[in-house]
């Protein structure tokens, strides 16, 4: 494999392989930015990977009072799943348990589209007959009486089929500390890109996985080729100077958004440099046969 070097950081001439997903977006508002954030954080908790969590979710951005339907501080949340049915199930459970319950919250569609997902239309039954339907300005809302007043929720949100999940970067550094610094810079860059999330804790995954296992029934297991402690024992992908590896996984509403986020991440890592950050950037793929979206790192250089 050819190696490119940009400002001392080695970049593998490889590509990230990503998959088509179903996604939706929500706007969550509350009386204060703190409570809007709280509802969004709670709702997107335990949503790092579709393998174990049913969906991947995260905060896209915070919204100022001018950008929300009700003029209150808000947060835009993105949810990704492998099918519309699963997305509907996750949406209903998460909004019902985490947003409806959060003080002063309201929930609106965060994306337009033809295919609808039930939002208020599913949660309205909590009103036990006291729920009120309102149609204003071409939109349909449900008012559900709750103990601090009313929970206002738009009837539906939309689902996009153009979403992409699994855009990724593998960040390799000399020590755990410098690698983490590079990954943090990359994750921070992603938060500034619209329409994307990095669903892992703080945007970073330390336990990258490979498909399959020696154990029967285990679908995914540790990515031994990138484990620095196994460097001599397995067919490794690491160089002699590698001490730690972290992965960034990116989900976006469009393929362009994922590419933009990857470009921003690489730029942030390169800017930090090999001494304080990563020495090498790579990406995960399955040989290009499984996922339709390929992001070649050489096309995304700063």
């Amino acid at each position: 494999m050819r190696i490119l070097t940009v400002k001392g950081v080695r970049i593998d001439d490889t590509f990230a392989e990503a998959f088509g997903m179903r996604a939706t977006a929500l706007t969550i508002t509350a009386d204060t930015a703190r409570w809007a954030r709280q509802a969004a954080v709670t709702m997107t908790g335990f949503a790092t990977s579709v393998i174990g969590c049913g969906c991947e979710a995260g905060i896209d951005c915070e919204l100022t009072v001018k950008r929300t339907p009700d003029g209150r501080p808000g947060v835009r949340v993105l949810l990704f799943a492998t099918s519309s049915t699963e997305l509907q199930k996750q949406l209903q459970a998460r909004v019902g348990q985490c947003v409806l319950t959060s003080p002063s919250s309201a929930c609106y569609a965060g994306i337009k589209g033809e295919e609808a997902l039930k939002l208020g239309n599913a949660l309205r039954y909590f009103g036990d007959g006291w729920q009120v339907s309102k149609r204003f300005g071409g939109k349909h809302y449900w008012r559900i009486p709750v103990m601090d007043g009313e929970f206002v929720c738009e009837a539906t949100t939309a689902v996009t089929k153009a979403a992409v999940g699994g855009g990724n970067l593998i960040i390799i550094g000399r020590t755990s500390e410098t690698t983490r610094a590079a990954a943090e810079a990359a994750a921070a860059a992603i938060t500034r890109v619209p329409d994307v999330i990095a669903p892992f804790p703080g945007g970073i995954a330390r336990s990258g996985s490979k498909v399959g296992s020696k154990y029967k029934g285990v679908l995914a297991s540790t990515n031994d080729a990138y484990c620095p402690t196994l460097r001599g024992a397995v067919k490794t992908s690491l160089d002699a100077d590698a001490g730690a590896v972290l992965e960034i996984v990116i989900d976006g509403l469009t393929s362009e958004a994922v590419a933009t986020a990857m470009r921003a991440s690489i730029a942030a890592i390169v800017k930090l440099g090999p001494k304080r950050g990563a020495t090498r950037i790579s990406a995960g793929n399955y040989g290009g046969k499984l996922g339709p979206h390929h992001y070649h790192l050489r096309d995304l250089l700063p």
Partner: protein
Amino acid sequence: MKPLLLALRQRPDQRLDLSPLVPHLISGRSAVEIERIELQMTRWRVSVGDVFRLRMGDPGRIRIDGSCDRLDRVGQAMTGGEIFVDGDVGTQAGRSMAGGRLTVTGNTGPWAASGMKGGLLEIRGATGAFLGAPLAGEMAGIRGGLVIVRGRAGERAGDRMRRGTIVIEGEAGAYAGSRMIAGSLIVGKKAGALPGYLMKRGSIVLGAGCEAVSPTFVDCGYHELLVMRLWAGILHPHSKKAATLLRRPLQRLAGDMAVLGKGEIFIGSQS
């Protein structure tokens, strides 16, 4: 392109049904063809050219000048485009309207917006009784769209309303929102007696209270509800008075308990 202008030659001596003069029915016709369109008067038929001076223009934008209260069913069943009426109109203005925009600078007669399904009807003067109400034998009144009345509305505004929004910036007569099935009705100034009489669902907002509240409405206290804020934001471009009213704390009365009881009347705190 200028709007198509219809200037009334003189006040007709009988009532005149203007329902054929809506954008979707006259588009694609020449000036001569439009002048030959027959209109029904109370006892006989006349052609457009007999009663109006026509100046050809964009048929999607019709302007009626010198209008009077004998012109009935203006904008009936219109689906799009715009009709601007300078003056008063008679009964059933915007009847069964499904889209577009109808503006009347003067007053309208009874049953304006009756059976309306969509679009925007603005009445800058006053309107008669039964605004948005069903005609005899019909099950429901207005079922969509937005009606703005800058002046006063007569009795039974929003009778049997099914959906949509009616904003009356002035006063309203007795029984505003009577038998409402659902929808939203705002009265900026004082309403007559017994608003929401036998309403099932829906919301009525009274900016300055009413002459008498039915005893079948129960007090639910003063609230500043988020949905009112949301609604105010949507109504603000159409009616600043209504938007201001909705941003105040409002007393919620639930009713009419004589029937289903899932409706609500909100009363501004100043009353």
